[in-house]
């Protein structure tokens, strides 16, 4: 649609180029554009699509000499092995609990923060709040987990000392199976909430002031303004971001989980991604690990399709 609009405004010489061309003639006419896009296509093709082709390893016996795609067919043997493994339900549960909690809390928190920052009167205070809240986004995961360990240290940590003021004993939160998910999620919100709120603030800044005016004439109070003017205006942004995050729901933070893992919290912190790393890279069971990884990816994809379908029904917005 936009393309016809653009074409209509183009001078004749350019408009003619849009007439139908065979692939060969097209390449010869636009060879420079092809040349510009080619390196990117090459890198993505090699580093993203070749591994996709290599997924067939999940259905083959890995053979060191035959490489990625040369081993004997093994059918669904490795999937069966995974489903029968005592780890299956634990991994599935841990992965789901961590991902879904992070998704829900991590999705809602930036929206709330953006609505709050939007309420701050006074440009300077607003800027201070924004600047401060998205600072942690740029601290690396390793440092974040390092800070967690320092603060949550059961004898010398900052939090332990705060707890002591209230007469509480220090607990080893990083080794506590019931505290792992809350610690993981809260620190995640701490790190990314401000950053993720920027896009909502941008959407809020485009709200037509007349809408506020009209709502006030109707007697809306502040909370009602937020509820009936601000929130509807960011729904499209919410939907797009929700779909994008849903697609990666089971990919949630290998790095952070891996770094936070210890023998005490392992029953709740072993997720599919960390297990694939251990089985595949550390104990070189390549075929088995590929099968587990593929299982993960397929579930991701199902989530994405579901999210997209829901989004389309709820708000007329969808990725495709």
């Amino acid at each position, binding site marked *: 649609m936009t393309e016809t609009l653009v074409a209509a405004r183009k001078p004749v010489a350019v408009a003619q180029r849009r007439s139908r061309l065979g692939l060969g003639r097209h390449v010869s006419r636009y060879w*420079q554009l092809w040349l510009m896009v080619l390196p990117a296509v090459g890198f*993505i093709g090699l580093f*993203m699509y070749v591994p996709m082709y290599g997924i067939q390893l999940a259905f083959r016996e890995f053979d060191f000499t035959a490489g*990625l795609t040369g081993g004997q067919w093994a059918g669904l043997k490795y999937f069966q092995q995974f489903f029968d493994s005592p780890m299956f339900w634990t991994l599935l549960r841990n992965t789901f609990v961590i991902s879904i909690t992070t998704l829900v809390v991590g999705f809602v928190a930036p929206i709330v923060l953006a609505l709050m920052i939007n309420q701050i009167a006074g440009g300077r205070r607003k800027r201070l709040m924004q600047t401060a809240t998205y600072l942690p986004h740029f601290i690396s995961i390793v440092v974040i987990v390092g800070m967690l360990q320092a603060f949550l240290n059961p004898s010398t940590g900052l939090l332990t000392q705060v707890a002591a003021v209230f007469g509480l004993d220090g607990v080893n939160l990083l080794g506590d199976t019931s505290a792992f998910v809350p610690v993981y999620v809260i620190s995640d919100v701490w790190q990314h909430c401000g950053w993720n709120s920027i896009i909502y603030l941008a959407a809020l800044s485009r709200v037509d002031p007349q809408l506020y005016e009209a709502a006030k004439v109707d007697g809306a109070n502040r909370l009602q303004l937020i509820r009936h003017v601000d929130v509807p205006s960011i729904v499209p942004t919410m939907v797009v971001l929700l779909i994008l995050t849903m697609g990666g729901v089971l990919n949630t933070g290998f790095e952070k989980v891996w770094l936070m893992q210890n023998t005490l919290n392992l029953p709740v912190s072993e997720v599919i991604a960390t297990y694939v790393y251990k089985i595949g890279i550390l104990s070189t069971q390549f075929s088995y690990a590929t099968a587990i990884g593929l299982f993960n990816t397929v579930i991701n994809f199902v989530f994405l399709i579901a999210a997209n379908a829901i989004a389309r029904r709820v708000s007329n917005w969808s990725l495709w």
Partner: protein
Amino acid sequence: MSATHVQSKGFLRKKTPGDVVFMLVFGLLCVAILFAVVYPVYFVMIASVSNPSLISTGEVWLWPKEVNFFGYQQIFDDDRIWTGYGNTLLYSVVGTALNLVVTLPAAYALSRPEFRPRRVLMLFFVFTLFFNGGLIPTYLLYRDLGLLDNWLVFILPPAVNVYNLIITRAFFEHSLPKELFEAAMIDGVSYLQYFAKVALPLSKAIISVIGLYYLVQHWNDFFTGLVFVRDNSLQPLQIVLRDILLSNQAFAGGAGTGGGSGVGYDQQYADQIKYGVIVVSSLPVLVLYPFLQRYFEKGVLIGSVKG
């Protein structure tokens, strides 16, 4: 933005009791959030120069006490930090240069409406955001390409980030005046010439934004070093940090200079060293941050323009 702000101010003139309560609760909430975000970072900084025994007894709150730089001395004496720093600097600079060389022309080509394959190509790129081959096939591919234990593994595989590509394409599509292109085409300028001589000079904003995104991505990369590199001399800063911060690997200098002073001494200063390492490794970003943050913000805004 300013319009709504004037708006809400005008609204405040007639304060109802409800508004006063709202303002009070709201103000307190904002201060609490600000404190929760900033204080941990501040605490790390003062803890890195305070007497560690005062920290462990909870006497350091607002200001550093019994300032000493023993931790930093140990850090600066340790080779691993410097190797890591050097490696990360190299990977970040070379990696970002390649990122820009690959991403910018591709984004430009994909932004030209008369370039018909662009729809298919965009699908080709975007698909990889939702589906990938997974860790093991990727690992085996790198092995076959000889990228394991090779510094190029930090540079080549992440050459294109699809999100950044989309952001850049959106910028080219919406921010370059169409008339300029038409005028140039009438003058018989080729796409490559137009890109190099007209488009790029007008795109400093997007170049700096995605350049920064890529730079931070390289700077914080931990995964690549963990999975694909065994050789210590190639490891980036984040892996060195992991060793010191999380794996409690004895500090090379600390153990030696401690000499006869015993285990308690080392243990005590281990914490101070950790706080110091956090500061030293995050410092570049924290110092640059006030100057860079408006670029980051701009990047998100450009990216939110629907392409």
